[in-house]
């Protein structure tokens, strides 16, 4: 069997997605030995952009059947690398919520770069005020983008980080010759075993300063739904998948509410609007929700969802 060539890149990313790939576990060794050939992956392979001795002028990445990109696009270099990946790879996979929806780093879209640099290079309590750096470093773009705002993306594997089940699933589907692999379009609540009584909310909305009520000796399916307990839980407006094919949602399993790390339930869904309905349906006043954008667009600030204030 010939090996399938794979190129991998990370852009405005944290390496969590790459660790998630490693967390595929023991199967990974077999895949690496028998099925996959990585031709470019900076986290483990010393393949360089400008030739191995750094003398070429044009950035280049080898051709591959499958391209995997994690992270959003925040500076000129990220953009250049992404365009090169699209050119050289037949199937492009957006891995992780940063790549699919902007992820946490896209929260920067609420602020101006000027404010950021003003604090970072001048006002911070430890910093000796200085001019902003500009030499030999790629300029920042006007905002942090998801991949599909700049190139066509063939497969979306969201998650922060993506569960290894979906990564393996996608890889095996591609090895079988399929070109499509879709995440289910369901919400976290669909996979959540907690008890919903559908009665109206009993109290005010609580921040995570309060703890949910549960008996640690009893399993998860004997705990009352966290949202119904008054804790802001983003399950209703978040895509399913964090527990893998079968598992319970991972945050709920640790008895803390969901924060939306798999992005919206389906492409184009709008948590900022939909959650108001979810809150109202359990009897909470949506107006009392604090920091709406910080909760509801925490992982999906690209695609124009989060914007910086217009200066007057």
């Amino acid at each position, binding site marked *: 069997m010939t090996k399938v060539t794979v190129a991998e890149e990370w852009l405005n990313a944290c*390496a969590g997605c790459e660790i998630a790939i490693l967390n595929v576990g023991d199967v*990974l060794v077999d895949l690496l030995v028998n099925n996959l050939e990585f031709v470019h992956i900076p986290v483990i*392979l010393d393949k360089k952009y400008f030739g191995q001795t750094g003398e070429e002028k044009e950035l280049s990445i080898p051709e591959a059947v499958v391209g995997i990109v994690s992270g959003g696009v925040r500076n000129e270099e990220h953009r250049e690398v992404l365009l090169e990946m699209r050119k050289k790879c037949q199937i492009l996979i957006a891995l992780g919520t940063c790549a699919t929806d902007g992820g946490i780093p896209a929260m920067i879209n609420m602020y101006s770069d000027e404010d950021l640099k003003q604090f970072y290079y001048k006002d911070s309590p430890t910093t000796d005020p200085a*001019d902003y750096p500009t030499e030999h470093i790629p300029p920042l773009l006007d905002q942090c983008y998801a991949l599909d705002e700049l190139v066509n993306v063939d497969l979306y594997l969201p998650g922060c980080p993506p569960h290894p089940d979906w990564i393996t699933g996608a890889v095996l589907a591609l090895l079988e010759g399929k070109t499509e692999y879709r995440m289910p379009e369901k919400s976290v609540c669909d996979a959540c075993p907690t008890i919903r009584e559908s009665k109206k909310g009993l109290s005010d909305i609580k921040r995570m300063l309060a703890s949910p009520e549960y008996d640690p000796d009893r399993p998860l399916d004997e705990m009352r739904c966290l949202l119904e307990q008054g804790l802001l839980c983003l399950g209703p407006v978040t895509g399913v998948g964090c527990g893998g094919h079968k598992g319970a949602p991972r945050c709920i399993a640790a008895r*803390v509410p969901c924060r939306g790390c798999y992005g919206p339930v389906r492409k184009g869904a709008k948590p900022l609007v939909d959650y108001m309905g979810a809150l109202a349906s359990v009897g909470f006043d949506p107006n009392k929700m604090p920091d709406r954008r910080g909760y509801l667009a925490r992982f999906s600030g690209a695609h124009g969802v989060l914007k910086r204030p217009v200066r007057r």
Partner: protein
Amino acid sequence: MGKTLNIAPITRIEGHASVAIHLDDSGNVADARLHVLSLRGFEQFVLGRPVEEVSRIVTRICGICPWQHHLAANKAADECLGLELPPTGRKLRELCQMMAYIPDKILHFYFLAAPDFVLGPDADYSVRNVVGIVGANPELAKKVVHMRYKGQMMLEKFAGKVIHPIAGVVGGFSKPLKEDERREILEGIQELKEFSLFTIKFAREEVFPKYLDAVKVLGVFPSGYLGTVRPSDGALELYDGELRLMDQNGEFDQFKYSEYVNYIGEHTEPWSYMKFPYARKWGALKLDENDPVGVYRANTLARINVCDKMATPMAQEELDIFRKEFGRPTHLTLLYHWARLIELVQACERAEELLNDPEITGREIRCKDIQPRAGEGVGCVEAARGTLIHHYKTDDNGFVTMANLIVGTTHNNAPMNLSVRQAAKAVIKDGNYDQGLLNRVEMAIRAYDP
């Protein structure tokens, strides 16, 4: 000026950086710099967030050490809200810190660093990686992948998420450890401890001796060191203690987290987004590898240098062997790898201690009646890549109004630059350079594990 070699991307590290080596007309190194290429802006976008949420946001600073950011943020938030943790809550956090440390060290040693040592720095790039190690020693490779996986999955099973954790909450921990879970984890930790002892012995006897000449040359320069120690006896601490900043001769200041602003300053260079922290007391930062001023290093070698002893017995035995050979402080950059493995042993032993502590299965895991308030807090945790400093201020509603972060790799920005220049000058002479030599420059960066 002659030509410029652009080594981009720096590979087998966590993060984005490139090295530019400028050669003069005769082909010798005129200058070499490490450029950090992006600015994500965590300090900015945690502003306006409720302080209890920050620990679930800053994890994304690093996907390899998310636990440490998670815990440092929780500690800073606790302080902002004036909370005193119940002992079980504190110990569960520390246990998670140790459990997160173990697979991370295994990952770094075998996946990122070992290819240079096991396969040699001159091996072709197509084999000089973890896949090459699989080819060279499949039995060991299988074992490594399995042990690392086991460590990760134990933590995931207990704490819900291992990457970008959520189980630490302001005022404590989200769920208690049950007795059956405790026994299962303890068994796993003991297995990992055996593997760690095997690893350090293997590295000490079979890997490092072959490269001692490289160790004595590559990226070496005198500097200061920053690490955390236990206030009572100066033992190496990974979770909580006081900061110790040592100068290149071994003299040190020891201070509480909240005093960090008095000791650490940050300087900006026009060619890197990342700032350059330096020790204020020693004078303005001077980036000269022969006579550096203000430069201090963080991370494994730094902690091993600043501590008076290890906190656990087997790690102490390893420290004795290490100190006997290299002294204290030692400035040999590639010894970061060795120091990392000594810490691995301590992390395993400490996890075992915590699991044998009867308090660990207690049910009082979190403060009750937590009220938002205006406050200020500095939380520090030792991460694989260096000391994390999270400093927040909150308003009356407990929303963040200021966040200053100095994270592991940032501390090492100045020293990495010095190491790069030093290594480049040491290996590139009269226009002679090739893949293997340039890889040696990268090895100097990889030691810091950025």
